[in-house]
């Protein structure tokens, strides 16, 4: 009984810690993005609230919480209210399987630095990312606005398309690690991160992940100059905030996944493992921001063309070649 209680306690503490860290990270990622983009464009970015604008996320939060919550006339009310929650919750739920570090011992307890080391962790992540589509789709559809609906349709098509190549790009990793468990995958990279062994798979995965994050150059569902603000055009206040925060949590998740699959997870010299993990995730996030500051947006037909006719065949080919090579090298 005591053991169960302690396990529960540890899980709750872990959950609390992860939520606190990830939500703060998401908030400051917004600030970091604004600052970095501003500097890339020879501006200062937010610098009024607190020293160097450090309290900007707090100000944003207060603003969003105090804004009027508008529900447009003709909207499907319940779905409209439900969609932002869905978007944020699916993003948060993925965190459950992310291993931040190796198992450590606290007070004689073996504590893995992951909420739940699922043996099908990879599939769990893929399943949740496929459910994330509903947030966008329902939000856009329920708004009863043409811009939002168009954005939903675009978002649906884009996410389904790139999920495919993302899933395929994970296959060689699973084959190499011989496990669906994320912890096992990290453990398999103890000596060498997979990015060095599978550079082309990494590229495919990274591009697909960028597309999944709905960020520039893949931000067609919220293209400001075509669709006003896309699927969240009609949202205001904290409901918009949920979409917004979901996007940045998503960025952290996708960064984590990139780290776990290719960059060797928490492995690294000198520094404690958790720092290496965070460092790598933030590095990936910086690259996302960097991309946003650099690249123009795809045209819709280019996006579809690239996803289906370039990325998907290459990913398939990659699976076949890498699989064949693996079978050959095993001598089977």
């Amino acid at each position, binding site marked *: 009984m005591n053991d169960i209680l302690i396990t529960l306690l540890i899980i709750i503490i872990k959950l609390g810690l992860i939520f606190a860290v990830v939500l703060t990270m998401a908030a400051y990622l917004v600030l970091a993005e604004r600052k970095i983009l501003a500097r890339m464009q020879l501006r200062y970015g937010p610098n009024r609230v607190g020293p160097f604008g450090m309290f900007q996320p707090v100000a944003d939060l207060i603003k969003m919480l105090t804004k009027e919550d508008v529900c447009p006339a003709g909207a*499907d009310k319940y*779905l409209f209210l439900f969609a932002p929650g869905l978007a944020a919750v699916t993003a948060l739920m993925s965190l459950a399987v992310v291993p931040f570090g190796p198992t450590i011992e606290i007070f004689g307890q073996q504590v893995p630095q992951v909420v739940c080391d*699922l*043996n*099908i962790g990879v*599939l*769990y992540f*893929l*399943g949740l990312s*496929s*459910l994330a*589509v*509903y947030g966008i*789709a*329902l939000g856009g*559809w329920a708004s009863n606005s043409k811009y939002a*609906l168009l954005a*939903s*349709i675009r978002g*649906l*098509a884009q*996410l*389904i398309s790139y*999920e495919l190549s993302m*899933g395929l790009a994970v296959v060689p990793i699973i084959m190499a690690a011989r496990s*669906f468990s994320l912890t096992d995958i990290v453990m398999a990279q103890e000596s060498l991160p997979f990015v060095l062994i599978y550079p082309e798979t990494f590229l495919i995965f990274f591009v697909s992940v960028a597309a999944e994050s709905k960020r520039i150059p893949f931000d067609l569902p919220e293209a400001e100059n075509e669709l006003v603000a896309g699927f969240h055009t009609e949202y205001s206040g904290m409901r918009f905030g949920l979409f917004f925060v979901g996007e940045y949590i998503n960025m952290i998740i996708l960064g984590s996944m990139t780290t776990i699959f290719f960059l060797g997870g928490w492995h690294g010299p000198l520094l404690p493992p958790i720092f290496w993990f965070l460092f790598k995730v933030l590095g990936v996030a910086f690259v996302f921001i960097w991309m946003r500051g650099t690249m123009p947006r795809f045209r819709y*037909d280019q996006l579809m063309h690239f996803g289906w*006719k370039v990325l998907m065949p290459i990913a398939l080919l990659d699976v076949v070649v890498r699989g064949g090579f693996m079978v050959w090298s095993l001598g089977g």
Partner: protein
Amino acid sequence: MATVLFYILSAIALTATLLCVTRRNPVHAIIYLVHAFFALALLFYVLGAPLVAAWEVIIYAGAIMVLFMFIIMMLELAPSQELQGLVWSRLLPVVLLSLTVLGATFAIIAFDPGGVDGIPVYFATPRDFGYTLFKEYALAVEVVSFQLLFAAVGGYYVGRTDKKKGGRK
């Protein structure tokens, strides 16, 4: 514990399916169906098949239903106005299906009046699943995968742009 979860989940799945069938608004119907799939996936998980559970979510909830929704949004289907009066020809499938379900339930109760003590749980790891699939049913899997490949190639062929007519490069 597992039995309680089983009953809760099956109740959710049944209710969601029933609601899905009775909704006039196609998008609402899809949401309920997704609920049902989700409950079903959890049922699989509870019954010891996590891999099937994951595939259920990824393929049915994540891909097929999303495609359905995509199409409904594109077509902008209004809630059907036709079902005003109940006609016998429309009621017939409902009656037939209800009879079948009732009959099946009755048969199960009749043949197994005591019921089984709890539900037996067999845990299937992805490894077991993979061995079964690719060892025992390798041929079937390959046939199906070739069919899919043909379908993909065919789709590409049908959807190609005619360069002579000046389609996009």
